[in-house]
């Protein structure tokens, strides 16, 4: 089986696709790794739903008490010059009102029509917990899902129809996995990049929805991290 990207490499690769000047929210889990691997020298403004615009990885020298400034995963962060603070209702104006260019979200399942399931495992005995996932799925201009191509049991996360409870219908535009970058289009799932030594057939075998390969597809690559 072809070696895929690590989580850090997936986050690094996604970061290359964020245009300068973009306003981007990062969900908890793999998405938050994008903050650590954002392209140097490119101005990207990261939003956190708890009232932060312009966060960067924690710089211990910033003199801010760790509890006073966190990301959505409650981990300490720092601010870039140009950052702004606001309250939760204003933060979700940004999210729900379509002001974010991109929301990067983790995924349990993504369907070929862009349906996203990332908040609840059916039949789990633990209490459900949604956080801001549904607001982001419904509100951001672009939703990029980032997840391993297959679960630990090998089950494909990219499916014809989600069997898990939805976070939002027709939300996802693009999927970043350890094996491929896949666009959700009106004509179905289109592979933009894939691990070079994995054939389309090999990728298809690990995917539960039909894929087509873009004519201008490129190899999915990332440096050692």
């Amino acid at each position, binding site marked *: 089986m072809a070696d895929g990207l690590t989580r850090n490499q997936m986050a690094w690769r996604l970061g290359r696709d964020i245009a*300068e*000047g973009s*306003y981007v929210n990062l969900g908890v889990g793999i998405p938050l790794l994008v903050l650590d691997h954002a392209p140097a020298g490119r*101005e990207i*403004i990261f*939003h956190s739903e708890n009232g932060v*615009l*312009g966060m960067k990885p924690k710089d211990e020298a910033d003199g801010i008490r760790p509890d006073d400034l966190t990301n959505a995963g409650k981990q300490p962060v720092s*601010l870039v*010059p*140009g*950052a*702004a*603070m*606001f309250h939760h209702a*204003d933060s*979700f*104006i*940004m*999210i*729900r*009102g*379509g*002001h*974010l260019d991109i929301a990067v979200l983790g995924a349990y399942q993504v369907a070929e029509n862009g349906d996203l399931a990332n908040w609840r495992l059916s039949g789990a005995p633990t209490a459900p917990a949604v956080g801001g996932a549904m607001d982001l799925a*419904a*509100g951001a201009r672009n939703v990029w899902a980032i997840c391993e191509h297959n679960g630990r049991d090998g089950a494909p996360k990219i499916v014809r129809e989600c069997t898990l409870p939805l976070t939002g219908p027709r939300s996802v535009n693009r999927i970043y996995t350890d094996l491929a970058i896949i666009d959700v289009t009106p004509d179905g799932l289109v592979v933009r990049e894939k691990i070079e030594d994995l054939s389309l057939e090999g990728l298809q075998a690990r995917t539960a929805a039909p894929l087509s390969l873009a004519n201008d597809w490129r190899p999915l690559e990332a440096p050692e991290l």
Partner: protein
Amino acid sequence: MIDKQCKSAAEAVEGIEDGAVILVGGFGQTGEPMDLLDAIAAKGLKDLTIVANGGGSGEHGIGRLLAGGCVRKLVCSFPRVPGSVAFEELYEQRAIELEIVPQGTIAERVRAGGAGIPAFYVPTGAGTELGEGKEHREFEGRAFVMEHAIKGDVAVIKAERADRWGNLSYRLSARNFNPVMAMGAELTIAQVEECVPLGGMDPETIVTPSIFVDRVVEIPDGVSNG
């Protein structure tokens, strides 16, 4: 490098088209983005819809847009003030469409447009002329009116200070409608009295975060470059 700063009011209003819905900040002349409005008037646009608190006064700003025949419809709470000559002439001639909206409902409709909320209910106007023809609904025995979001193609606003990302702060009651209009449009353009270097504004006291702002032009008070 992100740089939302424009060199002139004329450059800042490039691309606005006939028929645009334009949200305008200000309350009376306080906080009204005169230079941007004058620059829009200078383009000779037609059929604009202006959403603002008032109908302008004098020969600049909304007053100039009205006098210039640029405006098809005015959505506001208070069109008549001393000096609102342009509006009053158009109104008398039935040459302008007027939608009167209670002041708080304008603010909330524009905020809703910016917040992804298509409609909401308010008690304001229920049982009055301004509620007539609107959908009503009772909650806990009281009558409410359904109001729809207003979304602008463009917002033109005035602030005191900006950085190159478009973070804004305001001065005293010149804040008024400006931060609200900033949230409600596809393209938000701010005239500011002073641009400061990035990092020169305290993150805790920025009123309009940069995400709501697309273009900034520095026009010190009393200096027009429109």
